[in-house]
Each structure stands twice: as C-alpha cells, then as structure tokens.
C-alpha cells in the first residue's frame, strides 16, 4: 500500500513530534511518502527526510500554501491522492481543517482522530469525548485518516530519504490570510511536553493564573487550561485541553482548580500520572487522579512550587 503522510509545518518549520508520531501509524499501513507543503517548506522537507519510515519526501513550495489555507492545500493533496491508498496526517487543527475537505473531493469518508491502526482498512477512534472506543472498517477506495498523536510513539530519525520538488496545484483563490496572533513562548509545546500543569475556573483570574505558570516553569512544563478558564479569559484559547481542545498524554499532568468534567478528562486521561489539587473532595477529577490533594490551591500550589 502507498501512503501519503502530510507533514505538520508552521512558519516553514517541521513540527517534528507530531509528524514523527503520525509516521508510526503511517508506517503500519505501507510505504510512506511525506508531503512537505508551505510557502517555505524546503527546510521542513529536509528534516522530514530523516524520519525512519520515509521512503521519499515531496516538497511543494508556493506562496499559495502560506498559512496552510485549507482550499489550496486540499486541492494539492487531492490531486496527489491518485497515487496513494492512504492519506494520513497528525490530528492538528490544520489537518482537521484540511483533511475532510480532501476526503470529500475524493468522495470518501474521513476517519478522524485515530487512536490505533488495526489493519489497512480498520481503525480505532474515540467517540463521545472518549467515553467509548469504536473500531470502524472503511469500505472506501482510499482512506483519509487523522492520527491522535498522544497514543503513538515517535519514530526515530536516522533516515535520509530523497527529496523531490513538485509544482503547485491550481489556486482556487477563495480565501486570503489576514493575520496570525500566535503566542510566543519558551515553554514546551502542550501536546509534546513531558509535564503539563493545567488550571481551571478555581484559579479565579488571569493574574492568579501566574500561580499555575510559576509551577509549570519550575517543572519545565507546558501550561494547559480547562474550557472554563479559557472562557473566563484567564488563559488563551490554545491552552484548552479536552474533547474540543488539545489532547495530551504527558508523564505527569497536574490539574489545579479543575473539577474534572468528562469533556476535560477526554483530553488528559491517558496521562501517565495525574495529580489533582482541588478544595472539593467530591470533585470528579479525583476519580482519575493517581494522587489527589484536597486543599486551597492558593496555599498548596505556591508551597508545591517551593518544595519541588
């Protein structure tokens, strides 16, 4: 089987962790060609060529692929799809924006957020916020699949696949990029961090969210948040962990002032060790926590930061 893996690229740089994890799933399906596509993609293509499992890398550089607008990117992938049985990508926001469009252009269903590859046609994926795991078998001629990276290990990087430059597809000219407001941060990226410290509504304000951030910085951790914390303006949207936010599975997840609604658990319950700090001993988060501490976060978290 021939597999086309869409590399995750932002601002010309390869998101190595997400792409390397999706490669593990892609490799299980057949021979993998990686597509590096962007306004600038040559550096990312060279990086992707190192991934174990990459037989070849296609590099499509063109201004129309800047900012990964869905319409031109999907048009390119759909055109390339002729030569492949599977189109695979890590389930990032960009891929979720693009892949269903590709699938519809090919008249096939998309298979979102795959957590296990059973065989070339059969995949497992979470439904109902991870309250059920469903195995589905596709009858489509081609499979368009996004991969839940938190459940796959990354492949090693020892390869040297050839890179081939390809031309751009026609630009549908339907949309135009205006601006990005991306937070600059020295902290590790949320979905690949080994430790995540998340804050919820219990934190109470944007200023007090510093308590969470200080603990995170002490641990070299990424910072996450519940929906309630984001909705209340304590934390930016890209920190949201959960069913409709990011899915994380770090070695250590510390939930502070988070009650543990199923929509939040959906994004973090596969973490290795979960710590919950909450003043309500009845909070459902304690049912999934390895270590629970019933305490006022304003006392416990600074004390924890100091003692670590």
């Amino acid at each position, binding site marked *: 089987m021939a597999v086309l893996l869409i590399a995750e690229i932002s601002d010309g740089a390869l998101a190595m962790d997400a792409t390397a994890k999706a490669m593990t799933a892609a490799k299980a399906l057949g021979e993998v060609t990686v597509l590096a596509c962007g306004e600038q993609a040559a550096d990312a293509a060279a990086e992707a060529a190192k991934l174990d499992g990459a037989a070849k890398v296609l590099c499509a550089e063109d201004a129309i692929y800047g900012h990964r607008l*869905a319409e031109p990117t999907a048009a390119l992938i759909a055109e390339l799809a002729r030569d492949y049985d599977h189109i695979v990508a890590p389930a990032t926001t960009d891929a979720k924006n693009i892949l269903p469009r590709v699938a519809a*252009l090919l008249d096939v269903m998309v298979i979102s957020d795959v957590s296990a590859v059973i065989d070339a046609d059969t995949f497992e994926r979470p439904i109902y916020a991870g309250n059920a*795991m469903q195995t589905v078998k596709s009858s489509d001629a081609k499979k368009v699949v996004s991969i839940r990276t938190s459940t796959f290990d990354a492949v090693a990087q020892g390869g040297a696949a050839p890179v081939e430059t390809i031309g751009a597809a026609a630009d549908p000219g339907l949309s135009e990029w205006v601006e990005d407001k991306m937070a600059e941060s020295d902290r590790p990226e949320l979905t690949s961090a080994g430790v995540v410290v998340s804050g919820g509504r219990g934190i109470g304000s944007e200023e007090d969210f510093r308590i969470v951030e200080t603990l995170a910085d002490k641990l070299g951790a990424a910072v996450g948040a519940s929906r309630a914390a984001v909705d209340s303006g304590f934390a930016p949207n890209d920190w949201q962990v959960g069913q409709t936010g990011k899915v994380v599975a770090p070695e250590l997840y510390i939930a502070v002032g988070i009650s543990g609604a199923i929509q939040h658990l959906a994004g973090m319950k596969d973490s290795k060790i979960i710590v919950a700090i909450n003043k309500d001993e009845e909070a459902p988060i304690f049912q999934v926590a390895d*270590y629970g501490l019933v305490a006022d976060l304003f006392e416990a978290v600074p004390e924890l930061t100091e003692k670590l």
Partner: protein
Amino acid sequence: MKVLVPVKRVIDYNVKVRVKADGSGVDLANVKMSMNPFDEIAVEEAIRLKEKGQVEEVVAVSIGVKQAQETLRTALAMGADRAILIVAADDVHQDIEPLSVAKLLAKVVEEESPDIVLCGKQAIDNDMNATGQMLSALLGWSQAMYANEVAVEDGQAVVTREVDGGLQTVKVKLPTIISTDLRLNEPRYASLPNIMKAKKKPLEEKTAADYGVDVAPRLQVVDTKEPPARQAGEMVGSVDELVSKLKEKGVV
C-alpha cells in the same frame, strides 16, 4: 442575505454515556437528547447577524430521525425563521455520516441559495469535525472553520479562527461555510413566549430519498467498547507527602 444553520440532535452533553452490550454503539434509547452545543452557538450567531440587519432569513436544517423535529423547534424558538427536517433514519442509533450529511446539505444549498452556512465545529457524539469542510469541498466554496469572531461585509466574511498556536484571521469570499468554536458567543435561552411562537413557524419535512442521496455508511462499526479504566489512585494529606510520592515515581 440568507443563512443556513445545520443542527444535529445529539445526546445531551451532561448525560453519562453507556456502551451497548452488543458492541454496536452507545445506548441512546430513553436518553436525554439536545441540540449539539456548537450548533446552538451557530444558531445564535445567525440570529445576531439578523438582529444587526445583515441577514434577512435564518433557516435551520437537521438530518436524522423524526425526533430531530424537537431540535429544530429549539432553533426556531431561539429565533430561526423556518426549518427543514430531512428524515434519513428510523432508528435513533443510526448515525448519518458527515459525507452523507454534507451531500444532503449541498442539495439544500442548491434549493435555498444561502450566502452563509453556519455549522458547528464538531458533533459531540461522533467527534468527527468534518461536515462543514466536506460541504465546502462539495460546493467548491471557501471555508472558515473554528470561528471565534465573525464580521460580514461587502460580499466577504472576516473570520478569526481558533488554531493550535493561537488565533488566525482569514478573509473568505461569500458564499462560504463557517464553523463555530466555543468562544464565538454565548447562546441565548429560548423564552416561553418564543417557544410558543416557534410551534407555528414553518417546519418542512423531507426524506433523504427526495434528494436522491444515498446515506449508506462508508465506515462499518466493528466494535464499540468502554475505554480502559484508570486504576484507583490515593489521596495525600499534604504537599510534603505529594512531593515525596512524585519523587518516588521519578517524575519530578
């Protein structure tokens, strides 16, 4: 301008989900059902565009079982002008896949010629996050998914989107498909008088066959099971105890 809002009837987000013993799916018999939360946000946004005078008509459409009428009545009570129900299944357990939904919506779009289709980002039952993008592909329209802010002006929409690294703003040509993210707005509750009025608003009923769309699933369900349960943990009495446990585990 006209806005079409697809609304899905799903299990209420507060209900504890139970997997059926035969592995065919999740038990939906006698379970509280509601409008998909992202679709409430879509209905709200459409109504706000109407209240601003930018839109004349808001049409809600739902695809599924007959009971989806209730979901459409909710949309009408919130302020949609009329509704279309496309009956595509008899059994509440039969989910219509995003590709089929998108094909049916494409037919509705042909008939209704809306300027904007405002849908939800994701149905909280199948968690697919696909229908809007698929519809956009089928129609050859622009798409602006995961909207956090929408401004409509001179034949285009400026949409700020929630993306992995933060926010991205794009300008899309109309007609377009926009999908809603959580922070776009806070949906209103329907007032009692509006719920009464909604009963008199037009609700047209069709079937998938009327549109000649085959809704047979492409993904066959092999098995559905409970996720692996986590081992019960322990409560610690102090920060000191927590620190020593974490050190023991070697994670700090």
